[in-house]
């Protein structure tokens, strides 16, 4: 984590009480949220309460064996992250300690205590390429040069936002191309600021921006039900609630793999260790659909699994979003996935109850709603202080106990986010994946994103979507009747609607994340698939009107081929042929 340069301490305290991750100390001269080192082993912690001369600390590591009387030292600084090149293709714990470095330092596959490491490699040299010259005026946040961080991403070296006042500028007095490590000065400004590649930023404070704008471009995910029915904008917020086994994590992984963001920050918050391992193993091998480079080249991972200390779970969400904001400042579109925000909320609850705070609903602290809102508010489409535009999209999984969406975390999240992808255990049970319930889910970005889809995919995108929604709605109503009287009791046209809806569900809404082709579906293909089903719909109803019995229409041989569009690589040709076949066959019936 961040105490990269200075770890000098002031005002020592003495431990008075230890209870799990919460330690209280006497006579510690520290401010709220300061980082402290606890005990003889120097375990990292953060000040969360001060009362008289008693300071309460949440400790980010296991506290077994820590005893009263041991010292507590403060660093005098709040919990911060190291920002600079090297954050991509990295894997961190909740307080930005690189897990690969920790493995080397600890010499064991287990996470030991009291070992610290800077969030970015302080010794690695990067090839710095200036973009400004001596004499140029620069303001806060302005880019002075670039380094190639990974094959995909050019890391922009910026004037720290706190180096100058708003609207203040300073002249560059020295700047040079060459090889530097992150702590070396790469540019000097007339006000005395030495710009290096390394910045520090307190995680609980949003990085400044000039302006927040209405997002108007979609975060294209390559998932049909998301792009087609419930799109999220770049800079938007979304929640994915669902009971266990309904596919939250697979959906988050699919987004991390295929969303067309420049940078992905994936926060595994209190989830399974093996899932994070899967990401670590898979991402370097997977190709970025935009450019064919390894996916890790645009990804930063934060893994605080469920068995890692609970206090670090509380902070990992903030660590993630601060890293995301830093890349946003460079003008990138960043997508942050948090899996799962419920674990984060539970970490708050656990700490809160150890502090014996008055509990709110279901034992969660009263400030739960405020914390959730603060987190999602850090997402958005921004005009940065340096004039560039960048976005942070935040997508949070929610794990409601018993799959009951009326619990506090889901409800408080829904009040903030604008896209809601409701996962459904029934759908998951019948292996309908992604098991996103089309009746309950919604996206409030639909209308502001339509112009983009009209311009970039097809003019009638919104109408087609509405058609699909209408058919699915009608199916839901009809299914209620079918449950009572059976399908055959319905009139022919309604039976046909059910058949069309079945293709919408099975071919269009379902998508196989484990099939090499079907896993990613570009918007063009999503659109063509929908029009194929619509072709069937239109032709079938024409046939019905011409007197063809519904059984014959349903039995048309070419129609089931709709189910195979998803797995076709050359889908354009396939769809064209299929549409022609369906039309021809159905017309031959009358």
């Amino acid at each position, binding site marked *: 984590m961040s105490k990269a340069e200075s770890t000098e301490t002031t005002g020592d305290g003495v431990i008075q009480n230890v209870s799990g991750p919460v330690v209280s100390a006497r006579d510690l001269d520290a401010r709220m949220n300061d980082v402290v080192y606890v005990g003889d082993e120097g375990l990292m912690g953060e000040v969360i309460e001060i009362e008289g001369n008693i300071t309460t600390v949440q400790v980010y590591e296991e506290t077994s064996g820590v005893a*009263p009387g041991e010292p507590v030292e403060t660093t005098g600084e709040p919990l911060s992250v190291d920002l600079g090149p090297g954050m991509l293709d990295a894997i961190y714990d909740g307080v930005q300690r690189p897990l690969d470095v920790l493995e080397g330092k600890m010499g064991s596959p287990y996470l030991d205590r009291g070992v610290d490491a800077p969030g970015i490699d302080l010794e690695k040299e990067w090839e710095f390429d200036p973009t400004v010259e001596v004499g140029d005026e620069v303001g806060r946040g302005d880019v002075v040069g670039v380094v190639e961080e990974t094959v995909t991403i050019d890391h922009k070296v910026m004037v720290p936002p706190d180096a100058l006042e708003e609207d203040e500028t300073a002249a560059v007095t020295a700047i040079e191309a060459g090889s530097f490590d992150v702590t070396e000065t790469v540019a000097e400004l007339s006000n005395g600021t030495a710009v290096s590649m390394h910045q520090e930023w307190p995680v609980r404070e949003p990085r400044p921006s000039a302006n927040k704008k209405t997002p108007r471009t979609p975060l294209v995910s390559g998932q049909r039900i998301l792009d087609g029915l419930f799109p999220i904008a770049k800079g938007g917020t979304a929640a994915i609630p669902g009971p266990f086994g309904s596919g939250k994590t697979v959906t988050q992984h699919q987004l991390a793999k295929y969303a067309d963001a420049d940078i992905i920050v994936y926060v595994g918050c209190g989830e399974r260790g093996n899932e994070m391992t*899967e990401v670590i193993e898979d991402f370097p091998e997977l190709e970025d659909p935009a450019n064919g480079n390894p996916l890790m080249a645009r990804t930063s991972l934060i893994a605080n699994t469920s068995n890692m200390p609970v206090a670090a779970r509380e902070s990992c969400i903030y660590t993630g979003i601060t890293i995301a904001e830093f890349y946003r400042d460079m003008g990138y579109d960043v997508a942050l996935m948090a899996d799962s925000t419920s674990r984060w909320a539970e970490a708050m609850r656990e700490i809160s109850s150890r502090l014996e705070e008055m509990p709110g609903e279901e034992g969660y602290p009263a400030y739960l709603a405020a914390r959730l809102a603060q987190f999602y508010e850090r997402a958005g489409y921004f005009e940065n202080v340096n004039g560039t535009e960048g976005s942070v999209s935040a997508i949070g999984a929610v794990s409601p106990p018993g799959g009951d969406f009326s619990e506090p975390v889901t409800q408080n999240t829904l009040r903030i986010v604008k896209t809601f992808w409701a996962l459904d255990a029934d759908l998951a049970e019948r292996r309908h994946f992604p098991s996103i319930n089309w009746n309950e889910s919604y996206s409030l970005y639909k209308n502001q994103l339509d112009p983009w889809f009209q311009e970039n995919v097809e003019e009638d995108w919104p109408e087609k979507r509405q058609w699909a929604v209408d058919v699915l709605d009608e199916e839901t109503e009809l299914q209620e009747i079918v449950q009572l009287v059976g399908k055959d009791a319905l009139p022919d046209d309604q039976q046909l609607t059910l058949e069309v809806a079945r293709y919408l569900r099975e071919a269009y809404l379902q998508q196989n994340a484990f099939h090499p082709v079907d896993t990613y579906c570009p918007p063009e293909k999503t659109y063509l698939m929908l029009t194929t089903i619509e072709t069937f719909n239109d032709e079938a109803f024409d046939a019905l009107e011409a007197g063809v019995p519904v059984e014959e229409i349903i039995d048309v041989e070419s129609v089931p081929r709709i189910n195979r569009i998803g797995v076709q690589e050359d889908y354009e040709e396939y769809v064209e042929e299929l549409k022609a076949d369906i039309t021809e066959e159905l017309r031959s019936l009358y």
Partner: protein
Amino acid sequence: MKEYQTITEISGPLVYAEVDEAIGYDEIVEIETAQGETLRGQVLESSEGVVAIQVFEGTSGIDQNASVRFLGETMKMPVTEDLLGRVLDGSGRPIDDGPEIVPEERQDIVGAAINPYSREYPEEFIETGVSAIDGMNTLVRGQKLPIFSSSGQPHSELAMQIARQASVPEEEEEGDDEEGSEFAVIFGAMGITQEEANEFMEDFERTGALERSVVFMNLADDPAVERTVTPRMVLTTAEYLAFEKDYHVLVILTDMTNYCEALREIGAAREEVPGRRGYPGYMYTDLAQLYERAGRIQGREGSVTQIPILTMPGDDDTHPIPDLTGYITEGQIYVDPDLNSQGLEPPVNVLPSLSRLMDDGIGEGLTRGDHGGVSDQMYAAYAEGEDLRDLVNIVGREALSERDNKYLDFADAFETEFIDQGFETDRGLEETLDIGWDLLSMLPKEELNRVDEEFIEEYYREDDSEREVVEAAD
């Protein structure tokens, strides 16, 4: 080592004592009662001057004259390969009249978290010989896959079947493989009855499995608080055998519900703010610290696979215990009372069951290319058949279309032929998949939209008569 006779308060399983030195959090304590009995406990909260101690054996017999000794270390498990074949109590002391155990190492039972970076992703298929698991919810090495059951269900039989069968083909297969690792079962009983325990023991002895097993017994009449250490002892032993002695360890923990009850009891005694249904707010973290100890580690041969068993109070999977478990484990196997009363063995309901690691553990080169498709298709077809059963109750079979009737037949056959194999039958994967194809062939070919066409060509039985033959041969 100082002795204190300074107990100030005794409340449920907790004892408060005054001290004049610094006592570490989690440290082990010995309490000697006036009658000369020695009880063990652990520091739950340590303040200057006073500590709260949780006593494993319960606090009866302790009075203010009891003396308290702090051992200056956290709880350790003495581990050695010699533990195999031994029966221990819930605190890790032998109860089988065997020779004294000479430990090679003493390991902290809390166990540090495995660095996610050092883990190896589990993708080695374990053949359990149970179709409902191998075919539909494949188990892989390093997975944690609980059995969700309720009182009165044969979950123990299923667990024993898995333990018995998972081990056998393993040794045969790897006979020519020099690096082949050995298989071990660690059985952790928490608060189960003597009778249930006997069933397990008899099965272990009958099949000769005891030699490669370690058994930890905390029975229903043993102290409840001890249950909170038993699984940690079990997993410490498992980790030692897996990651230092290269065993493939299968850990069976039964019954997790009793463990959680013990957590609640301690929480209540400490007057903590309770979470849902009175269980402590940190139960998720606590359970995760157990379940997450399953896995594989890069560069180590062995693996820890966990099958925790829990009985859902009221057969309700939204109860906090199954709910939190489901969020941590990599899937779950449901034992269904309805299927049980129909006499299915094992009565596994595959619809809500799930193995999250299945997709990476099956397919070409691992099991068989068609495995994923067959499983998905059977899921979808069985779910559809199940739905139709409700409808049949209302409108009768005649009112349904031919297609619907085929799905109904499929659902029936799926239960009687695929699921109901008996607790003693060991089915190979090939056999499981072949039965799967027999069943899928009851449906029209066009309905099989989840299986790749090439596999339909290869395995679909055009002729229904072929199916009859297989059935007749059964």
